[in-house]
């Protein structure tokens, strides 16, 4: 079975601006123009008030690690020898841990935590979510050690 044609593509959604944001170096959430609800992952349609207008707001700052894992038994697209196209780059990040950080205000962001082993991570650590351009030119979200 072939999955590369399944729609994983954020570019083909109403929130395609999210990918442009990552390329500019900004991690974006959506803010509902009607009720003001801020949501991540971003959505064009508000689940609080059913509004369909939104604006972009940047997710900035440092968050707290809520949980993490390192996946060793990987799905087909993430196996080291996979040669097809995947919408999010997986380059170089196998088997990097993945985590969820909670930002001030309660937004939670999932991202890769490259360059470390899961054993060195602790729930409660401070990590900053940020976009990253990978060596193959594609973008993703990483959780980076907070500076200072």
């Amino acid at each position, binding site marked *: 079975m072939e999955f590369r044609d*399944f729609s994983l593509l954020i570019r083909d959604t109403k929130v395609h601006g999210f990918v442009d944001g990552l390329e500019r170096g900004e991690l974006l959430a959506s803010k509902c123009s009607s009720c003001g609800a801020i949501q991540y992952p971003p959505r064009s349609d508000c689940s609080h008030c059913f509004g369909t207008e939104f604006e972009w707001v940047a997710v900035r700052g440092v968050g707290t690690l809520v949980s993490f894992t390192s*996946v060793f*038994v990987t799905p087909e697209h993430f196996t080291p020898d996979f040669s097809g196209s995947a919408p999010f780059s997986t380059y170089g990040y196998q088997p990097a841990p*993945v985590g969820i950080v909670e930002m001030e205000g309660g937004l939670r962001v*999932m991202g890769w935590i490259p360059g470390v082993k899961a054993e060195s991570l*602790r729930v409660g650590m401070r990590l900053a979510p940020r976009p990253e351009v990978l060596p193959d030119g594609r973008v993703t979200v990483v959780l980076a050690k907070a500076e200072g």
Partner: protein
Amino acid sequence: MGHVAVVGIGQSRFGIRSDASLRELAFEAVKACLEDVGVQLAEVESMVVSVASDELSFALQPSAQVTDYIGFHPKPSFRVEAACASGSMAVRAGWMNVASGLADLVLVVGAEKMTEVPTPIATEVLGRAGDSLWEYPFGMTFPGYYALIAQAHMAKYGTTEAQLAAVAVKNHYYGALNPYAHMRKEITLEKALSSFVVASPLKLYDCCLISDGAAAILLASEKVAKRLRKNPIWLRGLGLGTGSLSLAHREDLTTLGASVEAARQAYDMAGVGPKEIDVAVVHDCFTIAEIVAYEDLGFCPKGEGGPLVEDRQTYIGGRIPVNVDGGLKSKGHPIGTTGVSMAVEITKQLRGEAETGRQVPNAEIGLSHNVGGNGQHAAVHVFGRDKE
């Protein structure tokens, strides 16, 4: 609404069933179910089929393979789907069929053939049951999602890897006594703890098996049930809850809101509480899921699921025997089949017909708990027998 009873049960042996197709597995379960109660297929008025995955069966409407092969047409049959909770949705739809008065005798079948695709593809199909757009792209898998739940539970409550492994040891102990189980083999705590890491902190023995298998139950209205059986088992409470697609959308990773909601509904409807449950089957797709289920179902206070299993309180003789059929962990988890197989097991327990060594003595009220995905759906059903 009328009362609904389980009057017949049957299931195939679970395992890597390269000897049988999806439809043949379903046939094994249906034949056993009808023979259990002595009903001819011609008497069955309607049917509900659960096959969870088009991707694993390489076909749309795989349920048609089942209805055709058992020779059911042209009578009504339809399929339901909620990933790993599909089977409980079929039980629920069957109950609705009977309770509404639409039919007096309804066959509920769950069937799944998972081992025809390579593991990386099955891993991908299952992983995409989570948020396929926003979380799967981080290489998330089913074990990965539950690993995030496990890590959060360990951090918040001090749950240990040994407590997780204790779930596996218990379920393999009982699975070894179940002739229908996929892996009939006891394991030691040391073996579980030293197995390779699938998604940290979950190791091989924290994960359920990828299995083939089928199960069937026959549901009847009160009038028909009393004609067919002296002591039918009644489906007394049904609960169904839903939860967020993304794990990142949950305020607390250590509980499944869908399970809490489903349990509340089912207990209310049945008029019982967790203390009155004599035997339970819960959704142990991963060891951490069983621990979280103890807490979400009210078998112990929040955070005490780890100590509960470590103190052997979920063995027979303990406070609440759980998964004494081996659970998904050892019996196996053909995803669309599991919910129906859970109904088979609880009925068997309440009839007093479970195999030697794994029968809960004098069980009167039983509960099944079945989760779809990583908590997008959860169903809780309460079963009871007439008091003697």
